[in-house]
C-alpha cells in the first residue's frame, strides 16, 4: 500500500498543475467554436515549414548531443574518477549553465560573439555551442555517477592480461558505461530539442526549434490549433527521448556490478587528454561567456569600475524594487518551490525506486517515471497559457496568485529532484528493510531508520538543483500574472529592455550566476566526499 499512498500527492499535483492545463490548451486546438475539428492541426502538420522546423530541431539536437557526449566523457572521468583538489567545486561550476535563465545565457554568448568571433554569430555553430554549454553537465553527471561506482576489477584483470590503458578503455570501460552514455545522451537530446530562448537569441531568424515555433504561433499569431499540433509533435519527440533514456537506464541497473561508494584514483600524467579537453571546455566554453558578463558589468564609460554594483541597492526608475529586493523575492520563491519539489520528489523517487515483480507493475512505474519528466520537455507557453484557462474557478482560482510562481518553478525542478534522489534510494539494499521489518519495525519506522539516513546523503544535491532551477526559471514565470514582486530573472529581463540600464542588468546577471554557483557548490559539498552526484 505504501507506494500507492506515497504517489497520490505527487500525482494529484501533477494532474492539476500540469496534465490538466496542458491537455486543455492542446484540446483548444481541436475544439474550436464549432465543435471538434482536427483540420487546423492537420494543416500545420502538413505544411513544409513545420517539417523543416522539425528537421532542424532534430538535427540541431542530434549534433549537440553527439558533441556533448564526446566532450562529456573525458569530463566525467576527470571530475568523478580522478582525485584532485577542487574537483567538487568544478563539478558544481559545470552545472551552473544548466540552471541559468536563457536570457542571461543569450546576452553572455552574444557579448562573446561580437568582436573577433563575430563570424560565428547567427550560425549553426553558435546555436550548437550554446546547447552544449547548457547540457555539458548532464552528460558529465550521468556518466560520471556510474563511472565512479564502476567495479574496477574487470579493468584490473584486463590490465594484468597485458591490455594497454587505451585498449582497456575501449573494450572494458566504455561498454560498461554505454547505458549511462545512452541515458545522458537521451536527456541531452530532450533538453536540446526543447531549447527555446537561447535558440531564439543565437539562431536569430535562421534557426528555430519546435519550441520557438510554438511560441511564435501561440504568442505572436494566437493560432492555437497550430500551437496544439506542434505541441503534439513536441510531446512525441520528448516521449521518444524519455523512452530511450528509460530503456538505457534499466539496462545499466540490471547488468552492472556497482560499488556502494565512489572509487577515485589519483591524477597521473597519463590523464593529460582528459585534462586538456575538460580544461578547454570549462574555460573556453563555460567560463568565457560568463566572464563576458562580468566584463560588461564592470565596464563603466571608457574604464572599469564597480558603479553598477553600487546601484544594486538603489530603486531603479520604473521598477518598484531594487535588485537586492528582487534577490530577496527570488530566494523566498525558490525556497517555497524547493520545499514543494522536495516534498513531492522524495515521494516520487521512493516509489520509482521500488522494483515490482510483475511486468505490469514495472510498466506502470515506467509510465510514472516518464510522466514526471514531461514538464522538462513541454513548452512553457503551453503550460502558462494552460494555467490561464484552467485554474480559473474556486477553489483553484490561482491565476493571479503569487503562489502560482513557486508552483510553476517546482514543476520544472521536480524532475531534477527525482533524478537526483533516485540513485540514493536505489543504493539502499532492500534486504536491510526486510531485516528491519522481520525484527518488528513498521513501515514508518523502516523509512525513518533505514531509508531516511540514506536519503539525507543525496538531499544536498537535490536541494541544490531544485533551488538553483527555481532561481533561474524564467520561461513559465513570464507567462503568469505576477503581482509586483519580480524575481531576479524578471528584473534582469526588464532592465535589459530599457535604454539606460545595461550595466546594471549585467551586474544583476553576475549576482544571479554567483548565487546559482554558490547554491550548487553548497549542494555538492554537503554530504560524504565520495558520494557521486548523479542525474541518473
Amino acid at each position, binding site marked *: 500500500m505504501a*507506494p*500507492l499512498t506515497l*504517489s*497520490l500527492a505527487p*500525482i494529484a499535483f*501533477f*494532474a492539476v498543475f500540469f*496534465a*490538466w492545463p*496542458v*491537455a*486543455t490548451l*492542446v*484540446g*483548444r486546438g481541436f*475544439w474550436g467554436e464549432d465543435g471538434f475539428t482536427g483540420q487546423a492541426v492537420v494543416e500545420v502538420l502538413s505544411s513544409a515549414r513545420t517539417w523543416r522546423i522539425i528537421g532542424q530541431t532534430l538535427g540541431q539536437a542530434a549534433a549537440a548531443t553527439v558533441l556533448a557526449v564526446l566532450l562529456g566523457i573525458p569530463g566525467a572521468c576527470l571530475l568523478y574518477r580522478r582525485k584532485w583538489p577542487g574537483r567538487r567545486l568544478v563539478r558544481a561550476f559545470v552545472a551552473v549553465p544548466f540552471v541559468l535563465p536563457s536570457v542571461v545565457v*543569450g546576452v553572455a554568448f*552574444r557579448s562573446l560573439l*561580437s*568582436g573577433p568571433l563575430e563570424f560565428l554569430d*547567427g550560425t549553426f555553430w553558435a546555436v550548437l555551442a550554446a546547447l552544449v554549454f547548457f547540457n555539458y553537465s548532464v552528460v558529465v553527471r550521468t556518466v560520471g555517477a556510474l563511472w565512479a561506482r564502476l567495479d574496477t576489477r574487470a579493468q584490473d584483470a584486463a590490465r594484468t592480461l597485458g591490455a594497454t590503458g587505451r585498449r582497456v578503455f575501449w573494450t572494458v570501460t566504455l561498454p560498461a558505461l554505454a547505458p549511462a552514455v545512452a541515458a545522458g545522451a537521451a536527456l541531452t537530446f530532450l533538453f536540446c530539442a526543447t531549447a527555446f530562448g537561447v535558440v*531564439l*537569441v543565437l539562431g*536569430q*531568424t535562421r534557426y528555430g526549434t519546435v519550441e520557438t515555433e510554438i511560441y*511564435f504561433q*501561440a*504568442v*505572436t*499569431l*494566437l493560432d492555437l490549433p497550430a500551437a496544439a499540433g506542434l505541441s503534439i509533435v513536441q510531446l512525441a519527440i520528448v516521449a521518444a527521448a524519455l523512452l530511450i533514456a528509460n530503456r538505457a537506464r534499466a539496462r545499466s541497473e540490471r547488468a552492472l556490478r556497482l560499488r556502494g561508494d565512489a572509487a577515485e584514483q589519483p591524477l597521473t600524467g597519463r590523464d593529460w587528454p582528459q585534462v586538456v579537453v575538460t580544461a578547454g571546455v570549462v574555460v573556453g566554453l563555460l567560463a568565457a561567456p560568463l566572464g563576458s558578463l562580468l566584463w*560588461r558589468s564592470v565596464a563603466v564609460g571608457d574604464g572599469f569600475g564597480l558603479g553598477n554594483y553600487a546601484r544594486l541597492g538603489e530603486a531603479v*526608475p*520604473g521598477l*518598484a524594487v531594487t535588485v537586492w529586493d528582487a534577490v530577496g523575492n527570488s530566494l523566498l520563491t525558490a525556497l517555497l518551490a524547493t520545499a514543494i519539489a522536495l516534498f513531492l520528489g522524495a515521494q516520487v523517487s521512493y516509489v520509482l525506486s521500488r522494483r515490482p515483480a510483475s511486468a505490469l507493475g514495472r510498466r506502470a512505474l515506467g*509510465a510514472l517515471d516518464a*510522466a514526471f519528466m514531461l514538464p522538462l520537455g513541454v513548452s512553457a507557453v503551453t503550460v502558462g*497559457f494552460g494555467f*490561464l*484557462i*484552467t485554474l*480559473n474557478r474556486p477553489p483553484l*482560482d490561482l*491565476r*493571479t496568485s503569487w503562489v502560482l510562481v513557486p508552483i510553476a518553478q517546482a514543476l520544472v525542478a521536480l524532475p531534477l529532484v527525482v533524478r537526483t534522489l533516485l540513485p540514493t534510494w536505489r543504493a539502499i539494499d532492500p534486504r536491510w528493510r526486510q531485516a528491519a521489518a522481520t525484527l518488528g519495525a513498521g513501515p514508518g519506522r523502516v523509512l525513518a531508520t533505514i531509508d531516511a539516513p540514506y536519503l539525507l546523503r543525496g538531499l544536498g544535491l537535490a536541494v541544490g538543483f531544485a533551488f538553483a532551477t527555481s532561481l533561474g526559471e524564467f520561461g513559465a514565470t*513570464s*507567462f503568469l*500574472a*505576477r*503581482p*509586483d514582486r519580480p524575481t531576479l530573472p*524578471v528584473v534582469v*529581463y*526588464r532592465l*535589459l*529592455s*530599457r*535604454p*539606460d540600464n*545595461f550595466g546594471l542588468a549585467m551586474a544583476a546577471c553576475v549576482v544571479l550566476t554567483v548565487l546559482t554557483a554558490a547554491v550548487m557548490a553548497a549542494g555538492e559539498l554537503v554530504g560524504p566526499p565520495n558520494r557521486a552526484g548523479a542525474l541518473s
Partner: protein
Amino acid sequence: MRKLFAAALLAVALAGCAAPAATDSATASPQTAATTDAPTTSKKLTVLTHQSFALSDELKAEFAKASGLEVEYLALDSAGALVNQLVLTKDAPLGDVVFGIDNTFAGRAIEAGILRPHATTVLSADTLAKYAADDSSSLTPVDYGDVCLNIDDEWFAAKKVAPPATLDDLVKPEYKDLLVVTNPATSSPGLAFLVATVGAKGDPGYLDYWKQLAANGVKVVKGWEDAYYTDFTAGGGKGTRPIVLSYASSPMYGEADDGTAPTSALPKTCFRQIEYAGVVKGGQNEAGAGEFIDFLVGKAVQSTIPDQMYMSPVNPEATVPAAWEKYTGVVTAPIEVDAATISSDNERWIKDWTQVVVG
C-alpha cells in the same frame, strides 16, 4: 495494489482527456450577458499591465485615496502576449483594466470583443482623434514612442561616410552590412519597423524593399537589447553595425555633459507605437476601471511617463523634461498605418517577411 496503481494512472489520463470538453461546456454558459448593462462596480480594482508598466508609489497611493479602491497591479507578458492572455481568459477575466496594448495589437483586441468602450473626458477630442485606434472608444491612448533607426554619428564621421537619412538610403552599396534590426516575430519594435516599411513602400512593395535590404546585408536579431547592446557600434558592446533599430529617445541616454549625443535618430524612418488602456469586458469593476484610465491620462501621471516608462505622454498638458522634448521632438511626420489594417494583415506580413528574409 498494482491494480490500484494502474487505476490511479488511468484516472490522471482520463482527467486530462476530459478537460477540454468540460471547459467547452463552461464557455457556452451565458455569463457574458450582463456586460451590456450598467458597468459593474466593486471595492477592489485589478490592473493588468505589460512588463514595462511603471507608476510611482506616490501616484499609486494618490489614486487609491482619491478613488477609495483597493488596487492590485498584475504584470502579464509583453504587448503581444498580453492581448492573447486576455483573449484566452475572456470568460473569466484576470482583471478589470488593461494597460499596454499597442497599435500593432489594438485591432486584434478590439475585434476579439474583450473590451468595454470607455469615453474619457480628460483628453480633448483632438488628442483622441490623433491617437485613437478606431472610433469605438474601446481603447484610450495613454502614451506613444517613435520607433526609429538610430545611427552612430561618430562612426560615420570617423569613416568619412555621409550618414543615411531615409529608408531608400539603406539599400545603397555604401551602407552594405551596416544595419541591424529586430525580428518582427519576436520583438515589438521589429514589428513596428516592418509596419513602417509597409506604410512607406506599400503592400506588397515592402517585400521587394526587404529583398533589397537582405541583399545589402541587413542583420536580423531577436530583440532590441540584442541589437542595441551587442551589434550597435555605440551600444557599449563590440558591435560592428552603426545603424540600429531603436527609439527616437535613445540618443538622449548617451548625452555627454556638453549636451551633445554621439548618436541620433533618423526622423524619416519612424513608426509611432501608441500604447492604450482599456476596460476589460466582464471584469468585476468596470466603473473603477474607467476611473483608472482617466487617472492614467490625467496630467499628474502623464508628466511622469518619460521617466517611468520611456514613452511620450499623449496629453498635451503634461510637462516633460526639456531633454526629452529635444530628442523626441525631431519626429514630426512618422510613417502611419491604421490599426485595423495592421490587425487584419500583420500575420500575413510577418509570414511573408519570414519567407523573404529568412528563406
